[in-house]
């Protein structure tokens, strides 16, 4: 929707203020949920870069998430500080993204989807069966908390409470949003959208489709890795089950239900999907049924996802995003 930058940033600031105040009256359990939602918001956004920006249906995102988590876990076990392990996790899973994207992006459409699904499954089986490295299905426990950031004299920011971790995740989420916005409103982002909407035309206009698909795929993997690291050091325990293809599907659902082609969409999606079970007072199993039906209904009545269908006209990048222009 067409908004003046002024109004946009106004809305943005309001939301931001709310989010900053939230943890001070939210109960700890919900704070925990908020942290998990934050992590998944980052994940969904990073998947959104692939699904929404360049229109490639990737199903191995949980794999990158897992690689990030395990990388940073193993690095901190060998006495790296978290603040080095975090970017390292991003870089390593970015590399995996590059290595997997290079062959996978040769295929198109559903073929790409299933190829990535296969890579996802294989990555998960590796995490599960490479016991000597990953400790297999029992997972890695006893991960370190992020080291406190010393401020002055004796004070320092530590991350032992969910509240502080909430802010850590929040900062990274903001960073992700920022990067997404900047990308979308740039030459690169236009190339992304060009490839998404009409690949042949884009190529005839001098856009190297494969390169930009790969770029988006890799950036997505990088952020997934960062999210993985955050998750690992919050929960201080990771096991392969967290990173199975089922998780990939959950992420995909978040992106599409929220609104793939927007920036706000995946975030709303993550909130929607993860907070939803809280509102089924009744038997969780019935909740799952309701969840399934809701997916169908949303897709039928909001083909562009929740956020997408709020927009007038078409999802121009500005439409979805609430951020400083």
């Amino acid at each position: 929707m067409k908004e003046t930058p002024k109004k946009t940033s106004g809305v943005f600031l309001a939301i931001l203020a709310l989010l900053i105040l939230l943890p001070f009256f939210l109960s700890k359990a919900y704070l925990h949920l908020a942290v998990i939602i934050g992590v998944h918001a980052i994940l969904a956004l990073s998947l959104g870069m692939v699904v929404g920006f360049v229109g490639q249906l990737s199903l191995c995102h949980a794999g990158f998430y897992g690689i990030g988590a395990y990388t940073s876990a193993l690095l901190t076990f060998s006495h790296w500080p978290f603040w080095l392990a975090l970017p390292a996790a991003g870089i390593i899973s970015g590399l995996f993204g590059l290595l997997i994207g290079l062959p996978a992006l040769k295929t198109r459409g559903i073929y790409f989807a299933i190829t990535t699904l296969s890579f996802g499954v294989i990555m998960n089986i590796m995490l599960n069966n490479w016991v000597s490295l990953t400790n297999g299905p029992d997972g890695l426990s006893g991960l370190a908390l992020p080291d406190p950031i010393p401020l002055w004299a004796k004070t320092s920011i530590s991350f032992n409470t969910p509240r502080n971790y909430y802010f850590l995740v929040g900062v990274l989420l903001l960073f992700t949003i920022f990067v997404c916005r900047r990308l979308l409103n740039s030459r690169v982002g236009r190339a992304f959208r060009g490839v998404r909407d009409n690949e042949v035309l884009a190529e005839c206009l001098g856009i190297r489709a494969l390169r930009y698909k790969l770029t988006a795929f890799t950036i997505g993997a990088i952020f997934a890795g960062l999210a993985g690291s955050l998750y690992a050091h919050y929960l201080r325990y990771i096991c392969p089950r967290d990173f199975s293809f089922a998780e990939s599907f959950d992420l995909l659902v978040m992106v599409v239900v929220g609104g793939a082609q927007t920036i706000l969409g995946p975030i709303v999606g993550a909130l929607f999907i993860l907070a939803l079970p809280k509102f089924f007072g009744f038997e969780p199993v019935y909740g799952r049924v309701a969840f399934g039906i809701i997916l169908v209904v949303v897709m039928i009545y909001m083909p562009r996802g929740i956020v997408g269908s709020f927009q007038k006209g078409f999802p121009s990048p500005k439409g979805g995003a609430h951020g400083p222009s």
Partner: protein
Amino acid sequence: MEAAILLQQVANGLVIGSIYAMVALGLTLIFGILHIGNFAHGQLYMLGAFATYWLVSLWGWNIWSSMFVAMGLTALLGMVLERIAFRPVRSAPHINGLIVALGLFIALENIAFILWGGDERTLPSPYATKMITLLSISLTIQRLLVFAVSILLIFLLYLFIQKTKMGKAIRAVAQDPEVARLMGIPIHRVSSTVFAVSSALAAAAGAMVGPIFCVFPSMGLIPILKAFVVIVLGGMGSIPGAIFGGFILGVAESLGAGYISSEYKDAFAFAALILVLMVRPTGLFGKE
């Protein structure tokens, strides 16, 4: 001895492959018409198995008649799903169809869980335990039946697609929906027919494996995943692709598990798929 084992493994693979093929055929038909990756198909397989189970165990029908009735019921369900869930999203981006299918997958599995609980039930069958052995291959009769029935059904499907008017219509729509519509082919009827046929196939597969494997709400997941591998391996919308893909995958898995490592059994299917797609990005039988 070695040769005997090899034969046995190939036989194992062919039996499993025939199941994959049956599920994959329906999937590929649906994809050909609606371009939807229909995950819910796996649950029709599950429901088919349950329907057969109840008919056999409650009313003591024999396995064949209950299988046919189950196929009918599941076909109806398939048509209903097509009408209420898939038809509305046929014009939307394909990914929406995928999410709808996922939603149905989740809903149906949990409905089954609520109705019948999570534990495994064995579908009683007279052929379940009888073994027969020919040239050092020993299989239960039920497994041979699975193979035979799937071959039969595949053949019938082939006749249906090639010979009947509706079959021609289906092929036309798969070729080019727009042209087909212009030619006055009732797209909606075609798509609901396709759903009926493929659901029936899935149900048959479920009914046939019921006695070998067990019947439980989450039984549909693995077959549907493998079926996706199969149809992509064979080439989306290609019927021979689905058939051969199924058998290839089955044999590859069983040989992989038998000769390389059973720890990575499930990885082989997917690794094989990736390799094939690297060489032929549209699968074995897919058109460029």
